[in-house]
C-alpha cells in the first residue's frame, strides 16, 4: 500500500544582512515531487522591481512558459509569460508583512519536461491585494538538482524564509 510522505529537505531564513538569492543546491533525486514554500519581503519598492522573485532551475533562465490567473483587488486577469516567478512583498507595502507563495514541481527528476504550479498572495495596507495562480512548464529534460529564487530588486530582507520539501509517493 502506498505510503506517501512529505519531508523537509532544507530551509533557510535570511539573516540581518539580507541576500538577493536563495540557492538550493545538490537536491537529491530520491523524491517523487518537490514543493517550495516562500515567505518573503524585499528591500526594494514595487515601483523599482521589488515585487517579484524569479524561479530558475539548474542555473538556466531559458525555456520557461506559463499561463496565469491574476486577481488584483476585485479585478481578475489572465495571460501568458516566458519565465517563472512568485510575488514578493515590497518594502513600501504593509510594514512587517511577508508574501506567501508555493511552487509544486511533480516528477522533478524525470527525463520529461517539468511542469509546475505556483500560487502567490501579497497584501498592501488593506488597499491592494494580489492572488496569482500559475501553471508553468520548463522545457528541459534534465533532472532538477538546483533551485534558485532571485529577488526582482534589492535583497530578501531578514526573516524571509524558503523551505524545500520532497514528496514521495510511496
Amino acid at each position, binding site marked *: 500500500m502506498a505510503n506517501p510522505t512529505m519531508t523537509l529537505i532544507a530551509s533557510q531564513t535570511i539573516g540581518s*544582512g539580507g541576500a*538577493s538569492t536563495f540557492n538550493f543546491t545538490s537536491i537529491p533525486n530520491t523524491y517523487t515531487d518537490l514543493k517550495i514554500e516562500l515567505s518573503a519581503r524585499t528591500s526594494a519598492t514595487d515601483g523599482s*522591481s521589488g515585487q517579484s*522573485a524569479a524561479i530558475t532551475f539548474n542555473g538556466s533562465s531559458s525555456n520557461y512558459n506559463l499561463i496565469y490567473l491574476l486577481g*488584483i483587488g476585485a479585478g481578475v486577469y489572465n495571460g501568458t509569460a*516566458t519565465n517563472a516567478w512568485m*510575488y514578493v512583498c515590497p518594502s513600501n507595502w504593509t510594514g512587517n508583512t511577508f508574501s506567501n507563495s508555493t511552487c509544486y514541481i511533480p516528477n522533478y527528476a524525470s527525463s520529461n519536461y517539468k511542469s509546475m504550479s505556483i500560487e502567490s498572495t501579497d497584501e498592501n495596507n488593506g488597499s491592494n491585494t494580489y492572488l496569482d495562480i500559475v501553471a508553468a512548464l520548463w522545457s528541459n529534460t534534465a533532472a532538477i538538482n538546483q533551485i534558485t529564487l532571485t529577488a*526582482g530588486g534589492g535583497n530578501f530582507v531578514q526573516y524571509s524564509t524558503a523551505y524545500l520539501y520532497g514528496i514521495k509517493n510511496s
Partner: protein
Amino acid sequence: MSDTPQAVDINCTTGEVTYRDLTADEIAAQQAAAAQAEADRQAREAEAAKVAADKASAEAKLAAIGLTADEIAALSK
C-alpha cells in the same frame, strides 16, 4: 559588509549553508532573469490596469444611455 549582492547557498545533501558574494556571471544571469520576471510582472499589471480602465469607461457609457447600475452589473454576471 560587501556591496556585492549575496547568495545564500543551501546544500541539500550536506545541509551546509553559506553566504557568499555572487560572481560576475551569476550577477549578470540573475539580473537578466529577475529583470525579465519583473518586466512580465509590470506587463501583467499594465494589462490589468487597461482592462479596469476600459471596463470603467464602458460602464460610464452604458450609464450615459440610461442603464441602471444593477443593469450594468448584470451584464458581467
